[in-house]
């Protein structure tokens, strides 16, 4: 069919999230200075097929839709061209204390960073 496999969309959304995490105070789990976070839930709506072509460049826009004490929800949209999004994703992130194996409250600077998005 020549279409991008629907499961791969999740990797595009993930790559965008990692880029965003890397420049946030939360940082990337396992990387230097990270404070810990996990993905608790992902829901994706598929709106259009993406047909592969050489040089195809996809764009992911990410914004924060909700922020709580320890969790926040990213709203992500995937674009293949100038028309509307081909997929939308809601991703629930949880600030997580790996040592204690439980959620932790977001720090003030993290909250400020994510609230501004």
């Amino acid at each position: 069919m020549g279409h991008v496999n629907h499961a791969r969309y999740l990797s595009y959304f993930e790559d965008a999230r990692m880029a965003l995490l890397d420049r946030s105070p939360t940082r990337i789990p396992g990387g230097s200075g990270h404070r810990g976070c996990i993905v608790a839930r992902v829901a994706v709506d598929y709106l259009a097929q993406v047909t592969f072509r050489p040089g195809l460049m996809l764009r992911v826009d990410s914004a924060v839709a909700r922020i709580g004490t320890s969790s926040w929800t990213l709203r992500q949209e995937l674009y293949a061209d100038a028309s509307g999004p081909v997929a939308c994703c809601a991703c629930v992130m949880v600030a997580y204390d790996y040592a204690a194996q439980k959620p932790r409250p977001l720090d003030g600077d993290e909250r400020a960073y994510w609230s501004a998005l």
Partner: protein
Amino acid sequence: MRFVYQCPVRWSDMDVYGHVNNARFLTLYEEARVALMFIGAREHGFTSFERGVVISRHEVDYLRPVDYTDPVRIELWLEEIRASRFVIRYELWGGDRLASRARSVCVPFDLANQRPRRLSGPERDFLAPWQA
């Protein structure tokens, strides 16, 4: 009735934390769905699912990480069967622990005419026993 699929995990499914990458869960769920709807349906003599079903929505809840050495088992069943869509529910087990739940909204699709179509009689008969 649940369809049970023993799912081989590949080395390349791991992320840098040594767990199955969260985005790859969807590929594992896909393997289980394909085993039922494509391979299972072939054994019943029809291939219409292979020729046109699109996914309109996926939801995945992550409950705990899956390690490479965990034997992965996926159980799936039908939540809903309607004229032009059906909903699949899944559980993903790592060893004896429930690691994830998921839900897929599937739409039979006429690829030639690029539009949704209705489920055929044989398709509906095939899916019905798996409805919880």
